[in-house]
């Protein structure tokens, strides 16, 4: 079905995990999308940065009764999804540093993030 097109896809994640399903269902799109061999980047801005917080702890039978899906971010590398960008201001005003995050990311300032956005063909916001 697909032609031999490679497009730049950016997933913009601006919502905290668990309070809503957007973080989880966005991740499901990223995983399926990985099969399409496109040029994929993920941006974490605002509360989206919290999606990457280490030490998340809950399960269907304990805590809030919701599955912990945070380890999926660690699996992204195996799907060749390796370009993860975190907005510096969002991280800092939350008192977080790269050490608090469960995957390696690149921390971008506003100019870098704006440039990344501008280069995209498709921006999917969740």
């Amino acid at each position: 079905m697909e032609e031999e097109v490679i497009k730049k896809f950016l997933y913009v994640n601006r919502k905290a995990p668990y309070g809503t399903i957007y973080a989880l269902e966005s991740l499901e799109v990223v995983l399926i999308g990985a099969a399409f061999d496109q040029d994929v980047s993920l941006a974490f801005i605002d509360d989206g940065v919290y999606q990457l917080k280490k030490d998340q702890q809950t399960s269907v039978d304990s805590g809030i009764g919701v599955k912990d899906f945070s380890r999926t971010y660690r699996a992204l590398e195996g799907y060749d999804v390796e370009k993860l960008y975190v907005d510096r201001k969002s991280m800092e005003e939350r008192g977080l540093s790269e050490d608090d995050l469960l995957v390696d990311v690149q921390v971008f300032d506003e100019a870098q993030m704006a440039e990344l956005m501008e280069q995209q063909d498709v921006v999917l916001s969740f």
Partner: protein
Amino acid sequence: MLHTVNKSPFDKNSLENCVRFSRKGHSILLFEDAIYGALKGTRFEALLTEALKNTSVYVLVPDLEARGMRMENVIEGVKATDYAGFVNLSVDNKTVQAWL
């Protein structure tokens, strides 16, 4: 690049963040509850006035009128548009980003 915002700036931080990442020459469309961000005399007038220096800001008139406002209530420099204009803005800009 076209940025779309659909939330009230009083309620959510989308407009603020959209403005933070928009660059010279970009366009911003305010629709649904985001039309409140286009109004004169609110706490967010300064934010939008700042945005107008570098970007073109549009407000969707059907959303504006539904909420009891008219173009005369809107900050000077903000342009009126409708759904067809929204489509045209999307055509004219290579990338569209929704600030949900």
